[in-house]
């Protein structure tokens, strides 16, 4: 079995042209990850620039209203650029810089990873080009503007379904054309080895902090950690330091779109099967001949037909559970959390909030749920308004 496996998942299924690039990346990462100088530099960026550690906030009103487990919110939405994406991007951009790369390319769905990459490129004086599905450039026009403002070039991708999967494909194609000075700053815990491991390690700061913050505050571990899952980077970050603690339920919330029994869904664990795509073996939404399915979710960031290989493995072993949340449940949760806590979550994160609303009442008052609020919802307001039949003019 090749490198970078999580059970049967993972691997390096990519064109020969890119093999030395990922081998070089793995070597560089292995040199840097335990290097005190690299880690000091990264911590400085995460703390002073991105605003870490992020808060673990006790959601008193939600807890009272739901009448069960105590609910804590891990506030990744408070990071600079408004989402967890910056954790990974600062790590990869710094790594790329150490490798002598001068140009970052990235895919983006909702635009959060693209904005984070454009931000890191500006900060570190690197060139940046972002590939984004044409459909998503319309859904997330504000983020397109931000990326351009930050000095990045944004390339709309019109092929296929013109969403996140097509953006990933196009960024891979771009990387094969220009490798020497270019790092592909992949935004989720997916793709060929070593990306799933690198992204997980850079996002694991989330669960490291949750653990420490909750031990300080409650003197105990949570009973459940909830996070939304597209590729799964915020979820793997929120789960990672609890994987060895069987008492902590790990629950990934997939986007069911209009429902897992309709074709308009992006719930990979619920509806997909084993396949090989975008450099990895994992579960994918696909037809009987292996053609990748045109998936759908209201959330551009979860609108992806696959899932990171470590999640596929956590599912196989039963260590994590994966549930599906529909558009309408997510939109309700988006409004609910805004009203209850004065916190507007990203529509992606609202999928995890929706799950917590169902789960908390069934748990005891002494129990604890942590919801990873992976991003903030400003970017979603006009789309949600549209969904609820209102037009916003800015």
């Amino acid at each position, binding site marked *: 079995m*090749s*490198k970078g496996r999580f059970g049967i998942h993972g*691997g*390096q*299924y*990519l*064109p*020969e*042209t*890119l*093999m*030395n*690039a990922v081998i070089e990346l793995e070597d560089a990462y292995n040199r840097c990850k335990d290097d005190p100088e690299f880690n000091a530099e990264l911590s400085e960026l995460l703390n002073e620039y991105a605003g870490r550690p992020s808060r673990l906030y006790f959601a008193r009103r939600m807890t009272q209203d739901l009448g069960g487990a105590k609910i804590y919110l891990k506030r990744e939405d408070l990071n600079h650029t408004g989402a967890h994406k910056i954790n990974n991007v600062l790590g990869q951009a710094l790594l790329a810089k150490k490798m002598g790369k001068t140009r970052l390319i990235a895919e983006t769905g909702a635009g959060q990873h693209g904005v984070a990459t454009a931000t890191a490129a500006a900060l570190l004086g690197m060139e940046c080009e972002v590939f984004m599905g044409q459909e998503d450039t319309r859904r997330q026009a504000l983020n397109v503007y931000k990326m351009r403002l930050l000095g990045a070039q944004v390339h709309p991708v019109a*092929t*296929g379904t013109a969403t996140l*999967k*097509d953006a990933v*494909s196009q960024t*891979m*194609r771009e990387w*094969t*054309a*220009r*490798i020497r000075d270019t790092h592909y700053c992949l935004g989720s815990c997916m793709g060929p080895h070593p990306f799933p491991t690198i992204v997980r390690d850079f996002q694991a700061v989330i669960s490291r902090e949750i653990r420490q913050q909750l031990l300080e505050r409650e003197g105990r571990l949570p009973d459940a950690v909830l996070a939304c899952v597209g590729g799964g980077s915020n979820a793997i970050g929120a789960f990672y330091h609890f994987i060895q603690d069987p008492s902590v339920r790990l629950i990934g919330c997939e986007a069911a779109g209009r429902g897992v029994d309709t074709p308009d869904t992006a719930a990979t664990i619920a509806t997909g*099967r*084993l*396949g*090989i*795509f*975008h*450099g990895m*073996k994992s579960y*994918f939404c*696909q037809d*009987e*001949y*292996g*053609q*990748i399915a045109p998936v759908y979710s209201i959330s551009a960031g979860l609108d992806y037909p696959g899932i990171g290989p470590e999640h596929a493995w956590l599912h196989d072993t039963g260590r994590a559970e994966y549930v599906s949340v529909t558009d309408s449940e997510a939109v309700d949760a988006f409004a609910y959390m805004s009203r209850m806590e004065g916190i507007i979550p990203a529509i992606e994160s609202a999928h995890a909030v929706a799950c917590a609303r169902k789960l908390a009442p069934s748990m005891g008052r002494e129990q604890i749920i942590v919801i990873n609020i992976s991003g903030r919802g400003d970017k979603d307001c006009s789309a949600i308004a549209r969904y609820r039949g209102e037009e916003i003019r800015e």
Partner: protein
Amino acid sequence: MSRIKEAFAGGKAFIPFLTCGDPDLETTEAIVHAMAQAGADLIELGIPFSDPTAEGPVIQAANARALSGGVTADSIFALVRRLRRTLTLPLVFMTYANVVFSYGTERFLSAAAAAGVDGLILPDVPFEEKEEFAPLCRKYGLDLISLIAPTSAGRITQIARAAEGFVYCVSSLGVTGMRRQITTDVGALVELVRRANPGIPCAVGFGISTPEQAAAMAAVSDGAIVGSAIVTLAGRYGRDAVPAVRDYVQAMKAAVSAPQRPAEADPP
């Protein structure tokens, strides 16, 4: 000797590629026969995939056209069975790992072999992942074709030693598609392959569209592979593409077979 190696026994080979089912399988069948009559030595049949990450815009669009017409691996196996009633030259499938894996790797390979396919090219299966497919390919008598690229430094020897059928030498960085110039020192890449495995033919693909480029690439290797230029003709002429493709293949075959000295890869 495998049928694939025989394709290289009579001199420099010309290897055209076509996306099956673009715009329909009847047209594909007619074009394949025409290419064989026009002098093709081996034909690559592309099985369309929804998300072909190693392809440029031309072949991406052909994949989309073919899929919208409803072709599947099964209908392409049936196409090969029809072709094999008269066609003797080697046929190689080119597709993506998921098309094979999702069908059931062994089930796919046994059906492909039974239909009369000689080999398989999977651009998203590098040396590191080859063992998942290679033993089953051997079991059914298919050559799993290995690729090397201009970025393969330090990897060519191991790849060439394990290669079967022929080595597909990728001429340039980037995805498939026509290029005005090929700047890579392809001759040096081929030389490294030959040093590691003197018995394996080496054909060059990616970016070749003109007879001059084909002649130049064939001069430093054992043959030239052309995809996007043919797929462009198939796209432009649709169901009436046979004459245009036949003329093109004839001209390209003449160019690679002509006695030649190594020349610049630039078009005139």
